[in-house]
């Protein structure tokens, strides 16, 4: 979620749509999550008019949010590398 808004401010609907494209989630859960991330100071929100339809609430990643995101990404890389190594070793062992 943090990464989705890393290079460009996003509005809620966009964030929900990009997440639910890739994972089967109940879309309603995304807004409470966005709220908590905002309360923790990882996002700030602002309203902006759009050409059509209602004004949209945009989410902007804060400096704190960016630092936190980078920590999480690093953690994820370490974790996924570990899992990949285990899978490769496991499969390699089976073939031998």
């Amino acid at each position, binding site marked *: 979620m943090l990464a989705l808004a890393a290079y460009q401010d996003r509005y809620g609907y966009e964030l929900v749509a990009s*997440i639910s494209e890739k994972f*089967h989630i109940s879309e309603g859960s995304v807004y409470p*999550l966005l709220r*908590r991330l905002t*309360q923790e100071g990882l996002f700030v929100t602002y309203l902006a008019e759009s050409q059509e339809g*209602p004004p*949209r609430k945009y989410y902007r990643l804060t400096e704190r949010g960016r630092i936190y995101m980078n920590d999480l990404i690093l953690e994820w890389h370490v974790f996924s590398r570990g899992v990949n190594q285990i899978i490769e070793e496991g499969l390699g062992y089976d073939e031998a």
Partner: protein
Amino acid sequence: MTRREFIEELNALLADLPDKDRLDILSDYTEHFLIGFEKGKSEHEIAEQLGSPKTVAREVWAGYRIHQAQTDASIGNISRAILATVSLGFFNIVFVLGPFMALIGVLIAFYSVAITLLFVPFAFAFFPPLLADISENRLLMLFGCLTSVGLGGMLFIWLLRLTVWLYRQFLRYLQFNVQMIRGK
């Protein structure tokens, strides 16, 4: 379910939330419906993909309770935060309530030890028969009492700090639990 039904049900479920939060949340979902509608989806489709207002309300409440317990530390607030988190599903009964009970148990045990140590001198004062064996050596008794009270006091202060620290850590753990998005 139409937009109106969804918003009205959510509104009713969040009735006890402060107005500012409640209206903010309702406007998020109204905005979601309006944009979805513009993109050519029907209200029913949008509502179905959002999931039930009940699930949404539970998640909102859990987030709110945890936030409250963080800003205003009290036993009541952390209990409400735990209850709200537990209501999110079976997983949390095991992984939230379990560790919490264990922690409380250990804390109560340590506090009992500290309090017992602090009250040793009073025990001697109120139950003179306890003195029978060692009353000959008044000095030993005095030092014994002092040691006991000293240890009890140190343990007690250390426990208070530990409790504060555990309170914060446990809230972080709650937050981590609530931040997981569940599948459909």
